[in-house]
């Protein structure tokens, strides 16, 4: 099954984790992105995720292959929700198993960073006041972010 995948329903963390089990692995690192009740000073009520799935899966697979090669980890997976999510829901899960913890941590961090930066997924925040807005990618929002592919204004 693909190492990067989308789901329209709640992610089953136990099942995902089980795919990484390996008697040769001593370290497992996981990251989960949860829907937070606030962002940049606004109170968030729910989120809506949308993806260009064909390209996103391809790009996600490339990220995971790069992580496996670069850090020498045994197994890595990423699953991302699409659709409507409420506060506290699991939006994205990354899991990595490896012989040792150092490479597991580094690969896990690499994957989530790259996924957020490169994979065509978008999220729209719906605020408590009824307003809504598409979220900037983190790097664009950072001062001194490169112009070009990722700079943009808050688009609401």
């Amino acid at each position: 099954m693909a190492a990067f995948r989308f789901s329209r329903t709640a992610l089953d963390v136990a099942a995902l984790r089980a795919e990484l089990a390996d008697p040769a692995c001593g370290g497992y690192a996981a990251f989960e992105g949860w829907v937070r009740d606030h962002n940049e000073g606004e109170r968030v009520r729910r989120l809506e995720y949308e993806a260009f799935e064909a390209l996103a899966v391809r790009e996600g697979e490339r990220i995971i292959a790069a992580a496996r090669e670069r850090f020498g980890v045994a197994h890595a997976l990423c699953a991302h929700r699409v659709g409507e999510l409420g506060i506290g829901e699991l939006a994205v899960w990354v899991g990595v198993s490896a012989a040792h913890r150092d490479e597991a941590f580094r690969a896990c961090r690499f994957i989530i960073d790259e996924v957020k930066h490169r994979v065509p997924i978008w999220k729209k925040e719906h605020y408590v006041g009824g307003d809504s807005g598409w979220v900037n990618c983190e790097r664009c929002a950072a001062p001194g972010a490169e112009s070009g592919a990722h700079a943009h204004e808050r688009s609401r």
Partner: protein
Amino acid sequence: MPPSAACCAAESTISPKALTVQYYALLREQAGRREEALTTSAPTPRELYAELAARYPFTLTPEVLRVAINGEFSEWSTPLAAGDAVVFIPPVAGG
């Protein structure tokens, strides 16, 4: 960002072709549709986006977008061919 004169001279020699455009996120909302089939003389995605931006109230400039052709990241200067599926990709924010 209008195409340059040189580019337009070239463009005028290119025959119209049928292709599809898909819209995501803010572009989907501003285009009011997920997808459309259209016939265009735009030689590359750059001119195609300019053509669409004249029709829809797009607020994102090409500088902040990426483009994909037939499901793969592409260059703004890649020649468009009949039957291409073009996607303009707003700044991403997964996770």
